[in-house]
C-alpha cells in the first residue's frame, strides 16, 4: 500500500493519518523544515526535528503544539513507525522515514548532500520508495565545493573594501544567510545584517552553530566602517530605499539560480555567486541511488525531466503534484518581484521575508491569506 499520497491538503500518510508539510490547515503535520512553503501556520499538532524547533517557534509562534524528535529517534503512530533523518538543507531539516507492515518510505523534503557546517549533514536512508524534490533537476546544475565559493565571496568583499565600497550580498534570510556567515572572513571588515536575518542568526547561535559576530544594520551606532563592511540582506531589499544608506555599493546574489547567465543578468546585480541549499543534479542522483529505492516520486522543480530520466535508468518514477513549487518551477518564479514585495522589507523582524530558493513567491502570499 502507498504510505504517502497527494491530497488537496498536502502529502498524506493514510495508515498514520497525518500530513507531511501540508499547505492547508490540518490536524497533524510533520514538518521537514522551517521554510515558508513547507512550514505553515494553523495546524493543530506539529512534529519536527529537535534542531529545528527554535526556527519553527520563531516563525509559527512560540506556543504551537510541537513535538520535537531527535534525528533517528522513532515513534509509533497508528502502527506507522516514524523517524526523522538529517536532510542537510537548513538547520533542523529532516527526511521523514515511514515504516508500515515492512514497507519503508522516505519523504526527503528539501535536501542537499554537501556538508555545509551549519546543519547536520545529509544522511542516506534506505527505503523502498523515495520522495525527492527536483528544484535543480537538470544536468546543467553542478555546484562547486562551498569553500571555493567562500573564497570568491571573500575576495569580492576584500576588493570592495579596498575601494571603500560597501558589499551587499543578497541571500535568503533563513539558512543561506547563516551558511554564508559561517564562511565569511571577519578580518576583512564588519559584518552587517538586515532585520530579517538577525533573529535567525540568534536561533542558529542558540542551537550551537558558530557564526561570526554580526551587527543589525538598524542598530548601527558607528557608521564609519560601513564602507568596509559586508551586508547580508534578503533579495526583497534590492532596489528599495533601505539600500540608500550604503551609498555607492557593490551588490551580489547568492543562489543556485545564478548558475545561468540569463538569470544572473536579469537579477541586475554586480556578481552572482552560485550557492544553493538544494541538491545539484549529481546530488539528486546520489541521494536517489543511496536510498536504494526502486520507486521514486518526484516533487517540485523539474518533475517531468527527472521522472523521464529516472524511468530511463530503470526506476519506477512518477510525479507528485505539490504546492511547494509549480511543476517545472524555474528561475524567475523564485525571484521576488522588484517592487511588489518592497513592503516586506521592513526593519522589523516581524515582517521578515523568509523564503527559500525552492519556494515561489505566490506560496508566501497564499500562506498569509
Amino acid at each position, binding site marked *: 500500500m502507498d504510505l504517502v499520497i497527494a491530497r488537496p491538503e498536502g502529502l498524506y500518510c493514510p495508515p498514520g493519518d497525518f500530513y507531511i508539510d501540508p499547505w492547508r490547515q490540518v490536524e497533524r503535520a510533520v514538518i521537514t523544515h522551517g521554510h515558508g512553503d513547507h512550514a505553515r501556520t494553523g495546524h493543530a499538532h506539529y512534529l519536527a526535528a529537535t534542531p529545528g524547533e527554535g526556527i519553527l517557534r520563531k516563525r509559527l509562534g512560540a506556543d504551537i503544539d510541537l513535538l520535537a524528535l531527535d534525528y533517528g529517534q522513532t515513534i509509533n503512530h497508528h502502527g506507522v513507525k516514524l523517524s526523522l533523518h538529517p536532510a542537510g538543507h537548513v538547520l533542523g531539516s529532516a527526511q521523514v522515514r515511514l515504516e508500515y507492515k515492512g514497507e519503508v518510505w522516505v519523504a526527503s523534503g528539501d535536501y542537499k548532500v554537501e556538508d555545509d557546517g551549519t546543519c547536520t549533514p545529509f544522511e542516506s536512508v534506505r527505503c523502498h520508495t523515495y520522495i525527492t524534490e527536483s528544484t535543480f533537476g537538470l544536468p*546543467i546544475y553542478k555546484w562547486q565545493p562551498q569553500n571555493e565559493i567562500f573564497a570568491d565571496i571573500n575576495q569580492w568583499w576584500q576588493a570592495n573594501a579596498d575601494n571603500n565600497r560597501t558589499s551587499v550580498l543578497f541571500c535568503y534570510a533563513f539558512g543561506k544567510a547563516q551558511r554564508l556567515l559561517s564562511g565569511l572572513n571577519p578580518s576583512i571588515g564588519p559584518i552587517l545584517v538586515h532585520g530579517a536575518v538577525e533573529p535567525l542568526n540568534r536561533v542558529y547561535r542558540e542551537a550551537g552553530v558558530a557564526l561570526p559576530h554580526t551587527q543589525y544594520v538598524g542598530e548601527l551606532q558607528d557608521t564609519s566602517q560601513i564602507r568596509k563592511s559586508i551586508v547580508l540582506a534578503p533579495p526583497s531589499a534590492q532596489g528599495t530605499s533601505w539600500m540608500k544608506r550604503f551609498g555607492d555599493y557593490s551588490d551580489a546574489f547568492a543562489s543556485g539560480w545564478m548558475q545561468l547567465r540569463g538569470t544572473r543578468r536579469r537579477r541586475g546585480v554586480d556578481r552572482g555567486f552560485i550557492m544553493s541549499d538544494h541538491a545539484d543534479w549529481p546530488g539528486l542522483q546520489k541521494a536517489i541511488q543511496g536510498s536504494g529505492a526502486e520507486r521514486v516520486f518526484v516533487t517540485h522543480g523539474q518533475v517531468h525531466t527527472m521522472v523521464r530520466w529516472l524511468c530511463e535508468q530503470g526506476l519506477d518514477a512518477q510525479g507528485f503534484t505539490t504546492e511547494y513549487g509549480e511543476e517545472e518551477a524555474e*528561475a524567475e*518564479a523564485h525571484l521576488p518581484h522588484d517592487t511588489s514585495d518592497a513592503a516586506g522589507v521592513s526593519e522589523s523582524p516581524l515582517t521578515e521575508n523568509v523564503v527559500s530558493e525552492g519556494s515561489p513567491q505566490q506560496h508566501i502570499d497564499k500562506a498569509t491569506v
Partner: protein
Amino acid sequence: MRAFANLYARLDATTSSNAKLAALQDYFRAASADDAAWAVYFLSGGRPRQLVPTKLLRELTLRESGLPEWLFEESYQAVGDLAETMTLLLPETLHSSEEGLAVWVEQKLLPLRGLAPELLTMQLVPLLQQLDRRSQLVCIKLITGSFRVGVSRLLVTRALAAVAEVDAKRVAQRLVGYTDLSARPTATHYLKLVAPVNEDEDERLEGQPYPFFLAHPLQIPTDDFAAQIGSPDQWLVEWKWDGIRSQLVKRDGQLWVWSRGEELVTDRFPELNRLLDHIPDGTVIDGEIVVWKANAPYLETEETTRDSGWTDNCQLQPSALQNCVQPFALLQQRIGRKALTPKILENIPVVILAYDLLEWQGQDCRERPQWERRAQLEQVVATCGQPQLQISQLLTGESWQDLDRQREASRSLGVEGMMLKRKDARYGVGRTKDVGVWWKWKIDPYSIDAVLIYAQRGHGRRASLYTDYTFAVWDGAENILDRKLVPFAKAYSGLTDAEMREVDAIIRKTTVEKFGPVRSVTPSMVFELGFEGIALSTRHKSGIAVRFPRMLRWRQDKPVAEADTLETLRELLPQTSRQSKDDRTKTPDSKIESVNDTVSQTSPQDEVL
C-alpha cells in the same frame, strides 16, 4: 584567452557603462598588441564566418556528456544559449590555457574552418579541454560567430581613446573598416589605433569612409516642436528612406561603398560602379541605397499597374519620385543572395539617394554647416547626371503642423517618416549631439490587437522565461460562431521585465499542450502589436506577413473576444496588394515570404548600432 574571457565576464556582469569602460581599459592596458587587436575586432562587432557548424557542436556535447538527446534539449531550453549549455554539460576540465587570444584565434580556431566533420571533432575536443569553463564559453561563441557582449563600438572607441590618450573622434576614424570581413587584425593594426596623433594622418588613404553620424528619435507632440527645436526654417527636412545607409567613397580613380555596419559592400551593388567616371576623386557621399523601380510587379497585377499609370508619373513628374522607391523587403532579398545574377540586377535595381557630402575635393568637410554641405552636394549630383545617383529631396512646410500633414503620406510613399537636420549642424560621429543634431521623426507603427496563442522560452537575457510569443487574430467577426484564431506574427520585444515575469507565470498556468519547446495556451491575453510593414504571404496561415513586429503594450483591459480580426489586418495592406489578393496564382509572392522571418529577427538597418 583567459584574460579575454575574464574581460567578457566583467562586461557581461554589469550594465553600467562606466564599469564596462573600466574593464575595457584594464584589458587594453594589460594585453599584448596581438591579443588587443583581436579583442577590438570582436568587441566592435567583427565576426569571422562560422567556423564550426552548431549541429556538430551539439553532437560533440552529446557524446562527451553521455546524455540522451532529449535531456540535452531540455537543458538547452532552460539555458537559452548553446555555448553556455555546452560549457555546463561538458565534463569539467582542470586545464586553463596560458596562450593569448591571438594565438587561439589564429593558430587554433581559424584553421578549423572547412575541416571535414570527423577531423573537426577530433581537433576541437582536445582544444576545448585546454580551456577553463569561462574561456570555453567565449571560445565557443567565437567559433559559432555568436559573440556579443553588450558593448557598443562607441564604448570600445572611448576605452581605446583613454588608453591611447587620443581624442575619441580620431580613434573612431581610425577604427573605420577595422571589422571588415576581408581584414584580419594584427598587432600593427592595433598599434595604429592607439598611436599618438600623427600630422599626416589627415591625408586620407584608400577607400576609408567616415564614421556615420546617427539620428536621435524625436518623440514629442508636434505642437511642442516650435518651442523645443525652433521653426522649420532652421531645419532641412527630408523623407526618412527605408534602405541601406551607405557611404560612397571616390578616391584615386576608385569607388568604394560602405554600409552603416562599416562593411565594404561595393561588390553587392555593381550598378553603382557606373558612377566611377562621373564623380571626381576626393568625394565622399552619405546616402541611402534603395531599390529604384518604375513599378512593383510583385505587388501588383499587370492590370493595376497599367491602370495606375505610375510608370508615367515616375518619369514625368519629379515630385512623384518617391513612388519609385520599393519596399525594403525587396532589397533584403538582394542582400541575402550569394550570387547577383543578371536577372536580379534587372528586377531589383538600386540607386543611392544622396543626402550629405562628407568630403569634397579631397577635403574633409564635416565641419562645414549642414546647409553648405547640402548646397555642394546638390552640385555634385547635378554634375554627375547619372540615374544611379539621386538627390534626397528637401521637403518644405510653413509650419511643423503642415509638415506633419505631409508626413501622413509616408506609408504610401514607402518611407519611415521624416528626417530633420539642423541647418547649422556639423556632421558628428555616431549618435552624438555635441556638434549639431539630426532627428528622425518616424511615423507611428501599424498596430493591431492580437491574442497570444503560443509561447516559447527566450534566449540570452530572457533565457528560461516564456518570452517569445506567437500572436493571432480572429478569422471572423465577433458574431460568427465558430470563428478561429489565426496566427500571423511572432514577437518577443516590448515588455518590461515585470510584465515578462507576469506573462510567463500565466503561460505556465494556462498551458494546453506542449510541442517540443513550444507551448500552446488557453487564449487569455491580448497585446497591441506594432509593426513597420505588411505584405501578402503564402507562408503564413493568415496569408499575411508583417515586418518587425513587437509588443506595444499589454491590453489587460481587453477580453480576447475583442481582439482584431483578419479583415482589420487586411485593411492595412497597401491598396494595390489588396487588389491582387484574389489573383495570387498569377503573382506568387514567394519573394516577400521571407520578410517576416528575416526582418523580424534583426532590427531594421538603422537600429543596429
